[in-house]
């Protein structure tokens, strides 16, 4: 069977489930709102990073991206939905690739638009404090932010396929991002930099001093995501539906 019809079907599934476009809308709204809020707080903090301040709305906003990825997959684990899906598309590897593409593309596009908007809104608020970020750094921050959000959505999607439950995935990832990563991230040094969220967030900073740079940081997040996707693909192919 060809890939295009399967991808079309998966895209239609995302479009026709109200909560999924809703999650993408929330990603935009929450990120922009929190970035705008951060922009009003012209800081005298010596560690003040104007690029990260402008994009800091991503920290709460990424929960929407994670929910998007997890829900898009978990909707297949309700009732006998996955059986019907596999009856229509018995090539499970191809189906999984289509599902992940249908998650990645909208997450990336909405992520880029969100990052761009958040950056502009927050910089307008920051005024002169935002001045010293170059255009190159802003483009890198916005691009990195879009890619980061896509990777987090895929990470959640892959993990949901492994755990076969959206609730399990969200109750694992959200506390991890809000608490564990936050607490350990400040306490520990270099090891914490390699956590899936921390590594990718380096791309959102103007200055960075760890072992990882913006792109290598995203590469580490991409490795985590790849691991989750491989696990998910393995689970989907191996198990009885």
């Amino acid at each position: 069977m060809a890939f295009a019809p399967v991808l079309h079907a998966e895209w239609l599934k995302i479009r026709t489930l109200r909560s999924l476009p809703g999650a993408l809308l929330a990603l935009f709204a929450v990120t922009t709102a929190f970035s705008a809020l951060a922009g009003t707080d012209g800081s005298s903090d010596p560690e003040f990073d104007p690029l990260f301040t402008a994009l800091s709305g991503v920290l709460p906003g990424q929960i929407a991206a994670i929910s998007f990825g997890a829900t898009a997959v978990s909707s297949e684990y309700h009732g006998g939905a996955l059986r019907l899906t596999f009856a229509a598309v018995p090539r499970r590897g191809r189906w999984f690739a289509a599902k992940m593409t249908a998650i990645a593309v909208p997450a990336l596009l909405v992520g880029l638009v969100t990052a761009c908007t958040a950056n502009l809104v927050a910089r307008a608020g920051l005024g002169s404090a935002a001045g010293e970020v170059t255009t190159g750094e802003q483009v890198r921050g916005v691009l990195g932010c879009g890619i980061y959000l896509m990777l987090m959505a895929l990470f959640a999607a892959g993990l949901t396929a492994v755990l076969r439950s959206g609730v399990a995935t969200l109750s694992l990832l959200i506390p991890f991002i809000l608490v564990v990563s936050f607490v350990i991230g400040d306490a520990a040094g270099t090891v914490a930099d390699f956590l899936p969220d921390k590594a990718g967030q380096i791309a959102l900073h103007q200055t960075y001093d760890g072992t990882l740079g913006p792109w290598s940081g995203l590469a580490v997040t991409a490795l985590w995501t790849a691991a989750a996707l491989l696990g998910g693909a393995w689970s989907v192919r191996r198990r009885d539906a």
Partner: protein
Amino acid sequence: MTSIEVQALTKEYGTRRAVDDLTFTVLPGRVTGFLGPNGAGKSTTMRLVLGLDRPTSGTATIGGRAYATLREPLRHVGALLDAQAAHGSRTARDHLRVLAVSNRIAVRRVDEVLEETGLASVARRRVKTYSLGMRQRLGIAAALLGDPEVVLLDEPSNGLDPEGIIWIRELLRRLAGEGRAVLVSSHLMNETASFADHLVVLGRGRLLADTPMRDFIHARVEPRVRVRTTDATAFGAALARHGHDAVEHEDGHWTVRHARVDDIGRLASQAGVPILELTAEEATLEQAYLDLTATEAEFTAQPQEA
């Protein structure tokens, strides 16, 4: 013309054999009733045919090919496994559109099957507002979407109202009449008797019977004749002369075992006994099924759910 071929099919879950060395063929042009108590392995067999579960050994094929190798399988095989398969937050029409698109089936078919299953007027409502019967109809609509030569329905009359049950009966007869292979599982005997031509009966994962329905019933249930007469003495004497085994009931009617109406009618006429009523007692599938399962000792020890 496409059949379902099941060859030495076995599926083990841990140490439990859900399907045990099963071999049968579902032929086109007739409705095959798939009978057995809950847990006999009917649904597992259907999942194995659809390539959803992997068999421990043996094969299940559709027209000689494994389901997973079919290009655009919904055009060849339509299945209803679980009425809960449609996501509650999607509309029925969107649910069917997704399936149609994945197998490059014209979207026109979506509206056709919605019409056919009587859901056209509620097609744009979310599935969570549907009753069980409506979900069942949606599942059947999904099975018919690709105009398949092979149709598998797991308990299709679940949750249907009386009109729905009559509708499904006529639908199944029509599908078989159009030359399709139709496999319908059920644990309702009277229901199955109303549409099946052929029976495949499972018990504890094993094949207990694979015969035409009429033969199945006639081989297992003795023919009986019900008689009412005004002259019991003369009738009893006439029966005894011809060696018939008969019982007179309290309300005055007789049951003659191992007999046909033709014989008893002639006999009564020759004896000059006035007859008020003379009917063949129709053997039911239920009786035949219970007779079969009673001979399976280990199987009757197993409590059966309704």
